[in-house]
């Protein structure tokens, strides 16, 4: 009873959320990073990053290994701090609220800011449908018709429905690597997050599967704000609207070199470092 009520009120809240635009805010900014630093114990993996992430577009983080791009990505939904000894400084504001504010529950943050991981990680003890519904289960929804509808819709959005519609009850790990990753995307968008973080989502996949995921990203950005970390510069050029280039400093901590529209970063970068990296002179 109570949980149904909760769900209903949440859906209502979501409806109003879409219709209001706060006056006086820059309408296109999804996340505002100010002096974000990520530490592992005493090691500073990310040095003071300030960055704006545009809403409903794809932002790519690129840079050589060890430049802190994945670490920074993991600060955006407070995943970083789940590792032992890991801490974050600075502020990340989403619609005027600092994610690291004292009243914010990190668990709650992660529901609205979803994450797709480097290695496809469907839950082995769950079927395909259960995998997609796992986030709904967390928010208290029991398996019913509504859930089945959301599962189907999410799988359609993730371009996986036609491949799995006849075997929804088979284990998620029975799928191929590319399908598994799309299943993970479906799982992430099933809970209607506003922002989806992707940590090198194609690095474990073959070229064909990669292409499918990239197409999918293009479709998803009309609805979601996407931040993607990638090793692959061509991928960043293909899928992203904005690119942020990171590098590793002399103290082995990562820092933001420059950010801008992807076309500009790839054709006419301001910084010499970026130019060298794009040209493949290091990294």
């Amino acid at each position, binding site marked *: 009873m109570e949980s149904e009520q909760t769900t209903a009120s949440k859906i209502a809240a979501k409806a109003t*959320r879409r219709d209001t635009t706060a006056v006086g805010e820059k*309408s296109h900014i999804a996340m505002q990073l100010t002096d974000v630093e990520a530490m592992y114990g005493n090691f500073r993996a990310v040095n003071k990053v300030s960055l704006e992430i545009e809403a409903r577009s794809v932002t790519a983080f690129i840079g050589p290994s060890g430049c802190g791009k994945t670490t920074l990505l993991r600060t955006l939904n407070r995943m970083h701090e789940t590792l032992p000894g890991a801490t974050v400084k600075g502020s990340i504001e989403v619609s005027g609220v600092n994610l690291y504010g004292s009243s914010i*529950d990190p668990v709650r*943050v992660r529901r*609205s800011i979803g994450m797709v991981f480097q290695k496809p990680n469907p839950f082995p003890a769950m079927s395909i449908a259960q995998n997609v519904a796992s986030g709904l289960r*967390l928010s208290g929804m029991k398996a019913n018709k509504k859930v089945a509808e959301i599962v189907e819709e999410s799988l359609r959005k993730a371009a996986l429905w036609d491949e799995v519609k006849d075997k929804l009850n088979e284990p998620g790990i029975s799928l191929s690597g590319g399908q598994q990753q799309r299943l993970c995307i479906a799982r992430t968008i099933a809970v209607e997050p*506003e*922002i989806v973080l992707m940590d090198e989502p194609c690095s474990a996949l073959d070229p064909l599967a990669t292409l499918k995921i990239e197409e999918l990203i293009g479709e998803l950005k009309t609805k979601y704000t996407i931040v993607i970390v990638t090793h692959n510069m061509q991928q960043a050029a293909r899928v992203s609207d904005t690119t942020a280039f990171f590098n590793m400093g002399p103290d082995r901590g990562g820092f933001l070199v420059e950010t801008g529209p992807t076309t500009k970063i790839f054709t006419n970068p301001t910084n010499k470092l970026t130019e060298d990296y794009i040209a493949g002179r290091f990294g």
Partner: protein
Amino acid sequence: MNQAPLPNIRLDFSLTPHDIRRRRVNQIMLRIIQAAAIVSVVPLFTILFVIFSKGLPQLGLSFLLNGPLEQPTGIVNAIQGSLVMTFIAIIAAAPIGIGGGIYLNEYASTRVARIGELFIDIMLGVPSILAGLFAYFALVPILGHSGWTGSIALTVLMVPVVMRTTQEVLRLVPAGLREASLALGVPLWRTTIFVTCRTALSGIMTGVVLAISRGLGETAPLLLTSQTSNDVSINLGQPMNAMTVVIYQNATSSDPQIVATAWTTALVLFVVALILNVSVRFKTVNNRVF
């Protein structure tokens, strides 16, 4: 993209009643899990406390060096018996266990190795009383109630411990090491001894020490085989005392002095078991075998 511009993102991180309930459930369950961890170490401290408080008063050099019939009474014969029988048993069990572990990991086909694994499992699962029963039936008619029969009963229990550990640690030796040696033209058996086994030596020794620890801690098989004796002697042809047997036999006595001997012997045995296990523990804490 000719659609009307979408409204700005509005995220609301406030908690629904459901979220608050989840948070509470989480806190309660984590407390319960923590409590389970605490509960599981309580017996250790209780046992430690009781053994020390009851065993320490009688502990002294004379307790360790005197025989049971001397005044003050001691358990030197039991200590000797435990050590001698365990020593004989490990002399027999270590080569069999190590050799078998080597064969199963280095030579056997996958199928044979799997069958071997199953065999070790079954042997590890054999209750110690059955090893005693076996030695009693098969060997007491020949060797009598003696240190020898006790040692053989212990051997049966130690072999699978050594073999399992050997097999497990050899499996952890990187294939690259073997191949590097084989590529130099070193024959397989020499590679196995001088490269593979040497690399895994500390792990293999762990298995041997664990087996010794098991041998020193066994009671039931010795009750049926070496039985007990008051003689201070290391003659394996006669019945022999052991620390575990002393504890067992004195435990049920109504004479507080005899029970005190059981506690003090338990203290000695406990300290020995602890030293043996601590010595191998820190090396193997992350790849222990079961």
